[in-house]
């Protein structure tokens, strides 16, 4: 099978989620003895990331470098992807289900008149068939599907797959015929979030607070814990505290918020409603701190401490600081 991974750049770098997409593309291609390619589009200088994609398994990298692509306009990128897929007869297209990927993937799918398999958490080839597993009912069940047509397009839940280096030829092929812009919305302005440097969906560690924190004035305890862990940590929140106006919606983890799958998820004072568990249960390791020993959060946690968050969180912060200082 011939596979295409669609890459995403941000702040002058390739996103880690794109390396995951490249890794999955390589895995699918290898299972069927085919090639894994990449589509890398963006403004001036984007071509320099081709080497990274080669390191993670790209045989050919289709590079579209043009000032008009600097803001990653999805309508044009979808047209571009359609042309690359048609000309090179890719059987499978892989993206990461980031905000960008979730916007782009269905538009590519519509141009190819195919359904999207969105937010996949597992992809395998068994008996020559591509099988895709993805959460349904907000993670309360998992569906495994096969799609009876080609090409197929899959978006991957970020952080679930993990990038693996598998160097390949990485031949660069420039795409010079850029499609015209069809009907599209015009980008006026981008404002970065002010709360944390790292978005909650791409953090390796998420520290999340719930009603057990008793009020927004106590969030400094979680901010200090997050700072002690390091720059790869971000803050999350339960729906209850977002609805109460304690924290912004951008931090909400759960069914009407963000879906996260960090290496470590620390839930503080969160009871663990069904809709919250939906947004974090694919995290690698889960720690729950709650004063109620019967809280549902303990049913998905790997480690639990029953007790008062106001006593436990500062001790945790202190211990991690001590350990990191010791090296």
């Amino acid at each position, binding site marked *: 099978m011939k596979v295409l991974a669609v890459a995403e750049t941000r702040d002058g770098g390739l996103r880690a989620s794109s390396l995951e997409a490249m890794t999955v593309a390589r895995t699918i291609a290898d299972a069927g003895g085919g090639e894994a390619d990449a589509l890398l589009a963006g403004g001036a200088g984007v071509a320099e990331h081709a080497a990274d994609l080669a390191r993670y398994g790209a045989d050919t990298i289709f590079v579209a470098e043009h000032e008009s692509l600097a803001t990653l306009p999805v309508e044009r990128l979808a047209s571009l992807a359609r042309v690359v897929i048609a000309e090179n007869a890719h059987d499978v297209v892989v993206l990461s289900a980031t905000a*960008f990927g979730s916007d782009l993937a269905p*538009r590519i*799918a519509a141009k190819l008149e*195919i359904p999207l398999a969105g937010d996949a958490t597992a992809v395998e080839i068994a008996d020559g068939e591509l099988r895709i597993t993805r959460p349904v009912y907000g993670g309360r*069940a998992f569906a495994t599907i096969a799609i009876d047509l080609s090409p197929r397009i899959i978006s991957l839940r970020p952080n679930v797959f993990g990038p693996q280096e598998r160097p390949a030829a990485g031949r660069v092929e420039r795409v010079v015929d850029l499609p015209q812009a069809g009907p599209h919305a015009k980008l006026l302005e981008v404002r970065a979030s002010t709360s944390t440097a790292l978005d909650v969906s791409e953090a390796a560690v998420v520290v999340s607070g719930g009603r057990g924190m008793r009020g927004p004035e106590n969030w400094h305890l979680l901010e200090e814990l997050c700072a002690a862990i390091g720059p790869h940590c971000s803050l999350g929140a339960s729906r209850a505290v977002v609805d109460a106006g304690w924290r912004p919606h951008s931090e909400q983890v759960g*069914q009407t918020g963000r879906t996260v799958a960090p290496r470590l998820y620390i839930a503080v004072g969160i009871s663990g409603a069904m809709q919250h568990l939906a947004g974090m249960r694919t995290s690698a390791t889960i720690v729950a701190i709650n004063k109620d020993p019967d809280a549902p959060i*303990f049913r998905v946690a790997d480690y639990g401490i029953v007790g008062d968050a106001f006593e436990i969180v500062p001790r945790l912060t202190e211990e991690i600081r001590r*350990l990191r200082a010791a090296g």
Partner: protein
Amino acid sequence: MKIVVCVKRVPDTEARIRVRGPAGIDAAGLKYVLSPYDEFALEGALRLKDSSPDTEVVALSLGDDSVAEQLRTALAMGADRAILVRGASSDDGFAVARSIAAVVRNESPDLLLFGVKSADQGQQQVGPMVAELLELPCVTAVSSFRLAEGSVRADRELDGGTATFEASLPCVLTITKGEYEPRYPSLRGIMLAKRKPVEEVDAPAEAPRVRLLSLDPPPERPPATILEGGADAIPELVQRLRRETGVF
């Protein structure tokens, strides 16, 4: 101004989903609701109607007789009329988009709204696909929007920020949680809804191309290790996390 809001009937987001047989769920006793993101979209439309009463809000849903219940909820919240598109709401997002696009084309709304994703399938595809089929501009994951002369300005949620887009009307927006906390239907709204029309149209049959191989409950996680002693368990917890996760 005419706004079409596409809504979906889904199991209550707080209900336990019991997998039954190789590929089904146990629907006995399961409560169904309007998908929460679709409620945000409907609320967004109703707020425009609140400020300019000549706005017509049409709720549209694809499915069988059962979706009439959610269309009645939309009418009770304040939609003017409803369209039940009789057809299969399948896993094939493109087939669903094609069924919806055919009906929306006849309605020719100024604004077409969707929830950013459904609470059951959650793939974020039908809205932008309908936009592609109708060749309309589309902004996804919109937390807030306002109308200007012949256009709409929409704030889109990014990973770690917000982007503002401007699209000329007609256009498609998919709405996420943000400004539009949905209203509850009033008693008067519920009474009025009974007299509002629910039209029915048939969607052309679509051959499903997505094959469901299995449906499984979420993978069981091993039972939690409860570290005794409250805050005194912290050193042990930190040692274990350092060893097993390597994140600090």
